């Protein structure tokens, strides 16, 4: 269980990027953070990953307070951030230094199979397409078997085809070890495709506006009516978070439900 308690972050220049964030994510749950740019989504992930220090509050993983990068927490950035001087398989093995060579090899081979890049194992990252690079980055985070995996808009730079295929790859990897996943996105479709819960955020200061459970059965049929209505629910919440920042989210949700009923 990943718990954020009264988490806040004020940058040195006075920007209040996050204020009083409270959130619990169950083990194995996929949570999606949605919100426009400047809501503090990246800041939140960087705090959990231990790359920045919170100004207040606490982050706990199974009760243990996190302060700094933790072996059980992995992160995939918006850019692949592969090391250009390492081959694809060396990049995937980057976080496996502590393992024996055979264990390392077998994990990397398995990951390469899962992301469908086995035949590119010895290529340089620069010889891969953007989508392939991001797959390698995801594999690099997964092979260490983290309990919590953070993804910061990992697919936002990709075309729609590639993005859909990467959703498959991500879910394929997630199925194996079922880590807790916190996925930042600004794509509502993506959130509804992947997440068990959507957290809608608001800027200035960054905070949680609303939470929507997404209880569709997996694998999800993106053409179905249930999917459509989930997308619409999230969109509505997002809309309200953008337009009327002081509105009561719960009332809005009721109104929306009533509208659907009618």
């Amino acid at each position, binding site marked *: 269980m990943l718990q954020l308690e009264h988490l806040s972050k004020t940058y040195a220049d006075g920007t209040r990027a996050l204020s009083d964030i409270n959130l619990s994510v169950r083990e194995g749950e996929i949570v999606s953070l949605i919100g426009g740019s400047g809501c503090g989504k990246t800041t939140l992930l960087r705090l959990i990953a231990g790359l920045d220090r919170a100004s207040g509050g606490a982050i706990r993983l199974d009760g243990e307070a996190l302060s700094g990068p933790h072996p059980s927490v992995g992160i995939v950035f918006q850019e692949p951030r592969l090391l250009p001087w390492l081959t694809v398989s060396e990049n995937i093995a980057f976080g496996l230094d502590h393992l024996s060579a055979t264990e390392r090899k077998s994990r990397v081979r398995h990951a390469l*199979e899962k992301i469908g890049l086995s035949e590119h194992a010895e290529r340089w990252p620069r010889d891969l397409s953007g989508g*392939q690079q991001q797959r390698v980055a995801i594999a690099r985070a997964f092979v260490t078997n983290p309990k919590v995996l953070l993804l910061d808009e990992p697919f936002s730079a990709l075309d729609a085809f590639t993005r859909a295929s990467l959703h498959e790859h991500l879910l394929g990897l997630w199925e194996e070890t079922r880590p807790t996943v916190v996925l930042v996105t600004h794509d509502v479709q993506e959130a509804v495709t992947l997440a068990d819960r959507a957290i809608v955020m608001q800027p200035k200061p960054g905070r949680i506006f609303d939470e929507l459970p997404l209880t569709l059965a997996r694998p999800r049929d993106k053409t179905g009516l249930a999917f459509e209505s989930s997308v619409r629910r999230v969109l509505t919440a997002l809309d309200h978070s953008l337009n009327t920042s002081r509105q009561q989210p719960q009332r809005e949700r009721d109104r929306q439900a009533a509208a659907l009923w009618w």
Partner: protein
Amino acid sequence: MSGEIATSAWSSQQEAAALAAPSPAEKRRAFDWRMLLGLLLPVAVALLWEAAVRFGLAQGRLVPPPSRIAATLWALAETGELWTHVWATLWRIAAGFALGAVAGIVFGALSGASGTVRRVLDPTLQALRAIPSIAWVPLFILWLGIFEASKVALIAVGVFFPVYLGIAGAILSVDRKLVEVGHVFRLSRVKLAKRILLPAVLPEAVIALRSGLGLGFMFVVAAEFMGASEGLGYLLVDGQQMGKPDQILAAIIAFALLGKIADSLLVLLTKPLVRWQDTVRERL
């Protein structure tokens, strides 16, 4: 889902295109005959000049024709005199380059890695850099005598600054995003330096060393001008005093060849370190 089917189903068009295009490395492997076009101009000028002197259109006294320069070079080589001079020059460059490069790497690394060291060290070094290096010559001669030590010192000074600047700059410009990847995997400072900083810095370090070597060749001439009894620089001075322009040009050509060979050697030796990069070789 087996790998084969899954791959083809998941690959997008963009990925297929990336795979189909030949990598730049493959393209470069075939010898490009157009490189020979660069020889056209110098060869044509040489032939024209040769012809002009042969047919009496020019005297060729101050600018000797290519055949006479070649003959001079050949004569110097045959008596073994050329090799004495070449070795003297090469030895000075090697010693000066080694000293200057090691010092440049050490100080550059310190200055690039630590803000405190940089604030202490860099202003002084920048101030020293602003001094034309030749201005050191009288001082070096006073301190170190007129023989080898002062010459090597001058070359070392010449090599030091480009290497220092290149290394410090390279470390400062290492992509912070890649360093963060190291933090995520909790690398120690030593591991971070070894696994991320060092490889990230290598391509620019090679460039810095190459410009250092180039300056080494420049400064060896200056060093040998200040009084030497052997070396290619001595051949230049001797040629001027004795009125032998063919000897001067022969020495210049020897310099050009040596410089090119030394640079190529450096590139060859460092190639395995930067084989992942394909732009580095095209920058200089």
